[in-house]
């Protein structure tokens, strides 16, 4: 049977930095590791390396989209310059509250940026994979980019309301009406597919 879990509160000293490395939910000060969350202490031993000490809670509710993170978002409106989206997931963790983001026209594709048109890339209610490139300034919110092969639209519905199938890197087809619509299609990597 596993030893009873140790719980700790913020500010509790866990161990010295010589014994372990600080993981998530901790911080270091004056050569010691302290807890920064109220939760359960976890110690992971990696081979030959210092164990990683972290404090975990059951739900990682406090996650924020940070620069470089891949996020899942839903398009809510488009115009000729940018698409506005709601960020729903960071990685595979759902967010407790929605954060708004913007995909600008020049951040949609990596190449031929000048020929990109927003309405040929996204439509409202599309589900898009994107990467956070900046936290934005006073005028804009999170700035996102889909300028990678793996990023772009993953789920889209046709005008008939049926989920479309990607047929090329810039087109999707409705299985019922066989009409083709333009999208910035993502090549979803197999490891991200969940069934």
């Amino acid at each position, binding site marked *: 049977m596993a030893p009873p879990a140790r*719980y700790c509160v913020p500010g509790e000293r866990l161990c010295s930095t010589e014994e372990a490395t600080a993981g998530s939910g901790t911080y270091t000060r004056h050569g010691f590791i302290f807890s920064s969350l109220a939760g359960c202490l976890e110690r992971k031993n990696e081979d030959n390396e210092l164990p990683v000490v972290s404090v975990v809670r059951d739900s990682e509710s406090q996650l924020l989209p940070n620069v470089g993170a891949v996020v899942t978002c839903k398009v809510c409106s488009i115009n000729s310059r940018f698409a506005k989206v709601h960020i729903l997931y960071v990685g595979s963790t759902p967010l407790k509250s929605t954060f708004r983001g913007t995909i600008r026209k020049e951040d949609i594709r990596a190449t031929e940026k000048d020929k990109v048109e927003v309405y040929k890339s996204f439509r409202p209610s599309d589900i898009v994979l994107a990467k956070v490139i900046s*936290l934005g300034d006073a005028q804009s919110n999170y700035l996102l980019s889909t300028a990678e092969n793996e990023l772009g639209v993953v789920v889209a519905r046709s005008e008939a309301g049926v989920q479309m199938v990607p047929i090329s890197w810039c087109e999707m087809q409705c299985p019922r009406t066989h009409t083709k619509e333009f999208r910035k299609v993502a090549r979803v990597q197999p490891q991200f597919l969940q069934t």
Partner: protein
Amino acid sequence: MPLDHRRLRGPEESQPPALWAAAAAEDEEDEKGAGAAARDPCALRPLFARAGLLSQAQGSAYVELGSGTKVLCAAWGPREAAEPGPGRLICEFRRAPFAGRGARGRPGAAAEREAEREAAAALREALEPAVRLGRYPRARLAVSALLLQDGGSALAAAVSAAALALADAGVEMYDLAVGCALCRPPAPAASWMLQPAEPEERRAAARLTLALLPALNQVSAVLGGGRGGPPEDWAQALRLGLDGCHRQYPVLRQSLLRAAQRRRSTPPS
């Protein structure tokens, strides 16, 4: 038949009768005051703390002091903020309309709002050093304290409760914050007293509210005033208050641990 309020014209201004009956009440209070003076100035009041009791808030805490002060706090984790920059902590302090002794204050009255706003600012100053705001860029954290009953040391209790609520919400923090109030009775040679009750606080010659980050041994709030004294006198008060904070810490810590365990054993559906 409904009463016609327009016919029963009362005076335009009215005053609480308690003010004019003050003389009689004072004696009674003095007796109580004598009893209070007999109280050991270093003694802490019984403290009850419980974290994680509201289901709709992300984090919550309830703190009750033996003197009758009851504070309920709720905290919410990061939400989107309009302005960029580091995270911001938004604090709110409200008094229930029936919190105080005597006549019910009109909620939303200017003076009431002003006092609440000042207490909220003090709460923010006390909590900000404890929260790792750098971890929450472009987001705001919110904590709101509701004073259900004012039995003295209300702000101090609110600081403790708010810190518990934030920790319970899973906000990353450097440390908890523990609040403690002190007062000096009006008698000339009186010494400082920990955790005054409401009548003691009202008549005190000087008051002080402290907040301590116990694990880091850092003082995050000092707020006090009243009859002047040499620095040594205030230093003594500070030492007494910090000691009081340290002594309250185990109770608060226990309550948080219990909440964390409860969370673990009953995973959210």
